[in-house]
C-alpha cells in the first residue's frame, strides 16, 4: 500500500490514544470505587 506509514500511523495514533485514555480512566475508577460506599454509586 502506498504511503502505508502515514495511513497505518493514523490508525495507530487514533486507537492508541483512545486505549491509553480508556486504560487510565478504568484504572482510576477501579482504585477509587473500592473506597466509596455502594449507595454513593448509582450504577451499583
Amino acid at each position, binding site marked *: *500500500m*502506498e*504511503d*502505508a506509514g*502515514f*495511513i*497505518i*500511523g*493514523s*490508525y495507530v*495514533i*487514533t*486507537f492508541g*490514544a*483512545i486505549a491509553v*485514555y*480508556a486504560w487510565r*480512566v*478504568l484504572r*482510576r*475508577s*477501579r*482504585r*477509587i*470505587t*473500592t*473506597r*466509596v*460506599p*455502594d449507595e*454513593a*454509586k*448509582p*450504577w*451499583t
Partner: protein
Amino acid sequence: MAATDASPGGTATRGTRLIGAAAFVGVAWLVAFGLGFSPADRDQRESVRILYVHVPSAWLAYLAFVVTAVASGLYLFRRRHSLAWDRLAGASAEVGVLFMGITLVSGMLWGRLTWGVFWEWDARLTTTAFLFVTYIGYLAVRRLGGSHEQRARRSAVVALLAVLEIPLVHWSVVLWRSLHQEASVIRPDGDVKMDGLMLFTLFVGIVAFTLLYVWLVIHRQRTLTAEDALDDAGLDAAIAARRAEAVTAPEAV
C-alpha cells in the same frame, strides 16, 4: 441501572460491558474495512483510508461538545441543580478533547498526503483547532477547585460561552478564508464522493466511534461521581473527626 452482578470495583456494569464489546467489534471492523477491504480512491488513492478515522472522530468531537453544552445548560437552568449534569459535561468535554486531538492529528496526516502540507488554513480545520484550545481551557477551569457547586457553576458558564463563541469564530474564519481564492485543483476538502464499500466503511467508523464515545463517557462520568462521592464521604468522616476535636480539646481559657 439494574446491574445483576455488583461490580467488584470499577464502574463497569453489564450495560457498559455490552457497549464496550460492541465498540471493540466496531473498531475491528473499521480497521479491517478501512485498511483492507475498501478500495483506494480514484484521485486520492490510498490516503482516503485516513478519512475513515478522521471524519468520525471529528463528528463525535462536535457531538461531545454539544453534549457538554446541553448538560451545562441543564445544570444551570434546571431547578434541581443535580451535579450529575455537571459531571456528564466534564466527562463529555474530556472525551471530546481526546477525539478533537485525534481529528487534528489525522487531519494533518491526511493533509500531508493530499495537499502536500501538514496544515491548511481552511475554515473547518481552523475552527476545529480553535475548539480544541477552547475546551482545553474549559478543562483547566474545571480544575480550579472550590466546592463542587462552584466548580459546576463556573464550568457551565464557560461551556455556554464557548458555544456562544463557535459561530463567531466560524463566521470570521470563513470570511477570512474566502479572501484566499487561489484555485487549488485537488482540494476535495475531505468531501470526496464516497459510495458503495467506501461509504459503508465510513458508516462503520461512525458507529464504532459513537460506541467508543458512549462507553468512555459512561465510565468517566461514573469515575467523576465516585471522586465527588469520595469528597463527600470524606465529609461525614471529617465532621465526626471535627466534632471529636471539640471533645478532646483542652478547656481553652
